[in-house]
């Protein structure tokens, strides 16, 4: 199992140099959304890490609109021409297309962590890059079972996010109003904590930089409690992000846990990070069940006997029905079933039908409003069906 981590600042590597990580994702100000180091610093860092015999990956995860895309490409071309980058990690499909077309020598790590939640999607984008893709970054929302299955089905390495802050969104807008508030930190970032009475969680961390605004979950993600299971997954890399708590102590504690993965060592690491942790969707994606509950199909429209809906009820006098379908089936002497919103059923033998002038009629049109005799218990929004079995007791009706 390989370990990957992120370098946002050129100084980050000094903490991580003697750690179990074999791959370092380098995030620059120019090409990534959260990077703080300049392209020049990144160049030197990539050389330094290579000299240590470890692998670097240039992170290009900016979503760039058409007008800025050309500038990004120019900067990237310039950077790649003078750097030792051999592998890039891309998120935007446009950048993926660019690298595929213009840099046949570069290996690609495809970041599909958002918007790609099924095997066909993953396989499709993998096939698009052919043998150029060396690794796919999977969604944080996959369960243990899905990760295991994908590791067998995908003909490439996979990476999951196993430890660190959980980014909830990225907006290109200035939500904290960084410029209006006339505040710039040394890194050009502005931070705030947010809470809402309407949310079950408090203490969201919000950060704004020159790429927009980012929101992080109050808790961090930790799948390291399941390390024994994860080690059984073939071709799996774990990515770890110590931000914003990266320090010598944190890396030391992580290294200790990695060499001796006992609970006590993990607890010490978590305590040092200063956050509480969740396991996210690792043991199951509970949104699957909830989505089904949210959907309330209106199956009555599929019933071949569905006629329409009650619009108005005049107690003891009449009810108005809007004919929605099967207008040709409703005739004098038909029997109707009324199903109220609470599910109660009543029926009516149709002895007379009247139009909106209350004149008797015997033929109906779709979308017509008709008046029938009052039926006890029927309320507006009651659904009306033709009764094909005629097995319900008939309620007596009043005259219109």
């Amino acid at each position, binding site marked *: 199992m390989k370990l990957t981590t992120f370098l946002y600042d050129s100084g980050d590597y000094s903490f991580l140099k003697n750690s179990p990580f074999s791959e370092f994702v380098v995030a620059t100000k120019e090409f990534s959304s959260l990077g703080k180091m300049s392209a020049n610093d990144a160049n030197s860092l990539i050389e330094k890490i290579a000299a240590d015999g470890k692998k670097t990956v240039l992170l290009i995860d900016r979503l760039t609109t058409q007008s800025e895309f050309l500038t990004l490409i120019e900067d990237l071309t310039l950077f790649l021409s003078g750097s030792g980058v051999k592998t890039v990690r891309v998120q935007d499909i446009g950048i993926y297309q660019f690298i595929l077309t213009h840099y046949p020598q570069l290996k690609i790590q495809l970041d599909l962590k*958002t918007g790609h939640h099924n095997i066909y999607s993953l396989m499709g984008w993998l096939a698009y890059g052919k043998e150029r893709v060396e690794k796919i970054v999977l969604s944080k929302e996959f369960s243990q079972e899905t990760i295991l299955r994908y590791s067998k089905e995908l003909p490439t390495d996979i990476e999951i996010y196993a430890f660190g802050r959980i980014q909830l969104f990225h907006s290109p*807008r200035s*939500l904290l109003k960084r410029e209006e508030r006339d505040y710039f930190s040394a890194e050009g970032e502005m931070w705030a904590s947010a809470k809402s009475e309407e949310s079950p969680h408090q203490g969201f961390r919000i950060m704004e930089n020159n790429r927009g605004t980012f929101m992080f979950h109050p808790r961090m993600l930790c799948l390291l409690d399941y390390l024994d299971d994860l080690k059984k997954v073939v071709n799996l890399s774990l990515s770890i992000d110590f931000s914003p708590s990266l320090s010598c102590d944190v890396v030391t504690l992580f290294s200790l846990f990695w060499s001796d993965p006992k609970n006590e060592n993990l607890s010490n690491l978590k305590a040092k990070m200063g956050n509480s942790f969740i396991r996210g969707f690792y043991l199951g994606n509970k949104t699957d069940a909830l989505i089904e509950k949210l959907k309330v199909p209106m199956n009555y429209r599929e019933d071949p006997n569905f006629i329409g809906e009650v619009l108005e009820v005049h107690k003891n*006098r009449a009810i108005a029905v809007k004919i929605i379908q099967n207008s040709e089936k409703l005739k004098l002497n038909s029997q109707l079933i009324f199903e109220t919103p609470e599910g109660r059923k009543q029926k009516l033998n149709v002895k007379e039908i009247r139009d909106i002038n209350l004149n008797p009629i015997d033929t109906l049109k779709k979308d017509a409003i008709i008046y029938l005799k009052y039926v006890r218990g029927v309320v507006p929004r009651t659904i009306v069906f033709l009764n094909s079995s005629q097995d319900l007791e008939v309620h007596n009706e009043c005259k219109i």
Partner: protein
Amino acid sequence: MIQCNNEKVKERFIPELLSPAGSFEKLKTAILYGADAVYLSGDKYSLRARSDNFSPRELEEALFFAHNHNCKVYVTLNGFLHDGDLSGLGGYAQYLEKIGVDAVIVSDLGAMKIIRDHSHLEIHLSTQASCVNALSAQAWKNQGVSRIVGGREISIVEAGEIKKKVGIEMELFIHGSMCMAYSGHCTISNFTAGRDSNRGGCAHSCRFLYSLSYDHDAPGIERQGHFMSSKDLNGISLIPHFSFNEIDSLKVEGRMKGPLYVATITKIYREALNIWKKGDSFSSEMVSEWENELEKVSHREYAAANLVDKADSKTVLWNKDQELDDYKIVGEIVGLEEGKFLLLNVKNSFLKGDRLEVLLTTGSSVEVVCEKILNIFDEEVEKTKPSTLVKLPFVLNAQNLNLVRQRVAK
């Protein structure tokens, strides 16, 4: 005034007006008030789990109704589908093709592949896929997409450029609620409410009121704000720009919104597009009148978001999030007796003597003073109740499904 310059009137590019159809009722309303196309969802695979989505029978009826009115129907299959959601998608695609759906709107390559393998349906890429540059559009085109619904981060000019470079149809949102985050990349609901925002479960946490403590402020200082709540999009005055940049389709957001919203927005944009099609310029009076009408539906404060310039901090509400209601719907015309009366299905109560407006399909709305309200038995009613039918004075050119509204007292 927006000038026509020396362009030839006959060469004006007229985009399609694409309205939301969250239910059969709203589909009819959208078409009646001038939509060229509607988008809707079947009973699965969509992002609007709580909308009154269309059952197969309703869908067939909707297609019949729409095509009889020369209106196209696009079906959304734009949830980010998980493996378990995909069973049946191939058969559903075949069914949609068989009944004559004009296109499907899809977010991910997996769903796209299954649809392509089972049908020849035209595929539009959902805004959820955040396609914001030409190379991305090219990659999606290579996958069989015929139209891109641009990410909400791109401008009209950028969309036009993508179209020219790639040779693909472009669709942009022109009106309605906006996500402040990159669509499809927001997982607040997923991680805080266990609801997958990208499969129809969005909890709208971005609309909440938050207390913010800035790290650089002194301890204890909190700022209250709807800091994540985007203002609503309004692009009515930008129709000439959409036309000049040959944007193929103008999309109105709002499958979850009511019939009055659908009717009002569709009608106004239809009128504006018709004026533009005739070769006229938009006078400031016209734009002002349309803006006034757009104020009459429930909405947040309006902004142009990214349509012209990059959306800045002013496109976020911060200080208030209440939807502004100038008008409310009081009912829908469900029947009429020529020259005698309109039969109104009451949705919100009103009183004898109240002034109402009948929102005709074209032209100005017509004021009706309710000097006398009668029920179906011709008995006078002092105050109407929801879920009753009442007779209003007859209005020339009114027709079934026209909506009746009333100014809200403030």
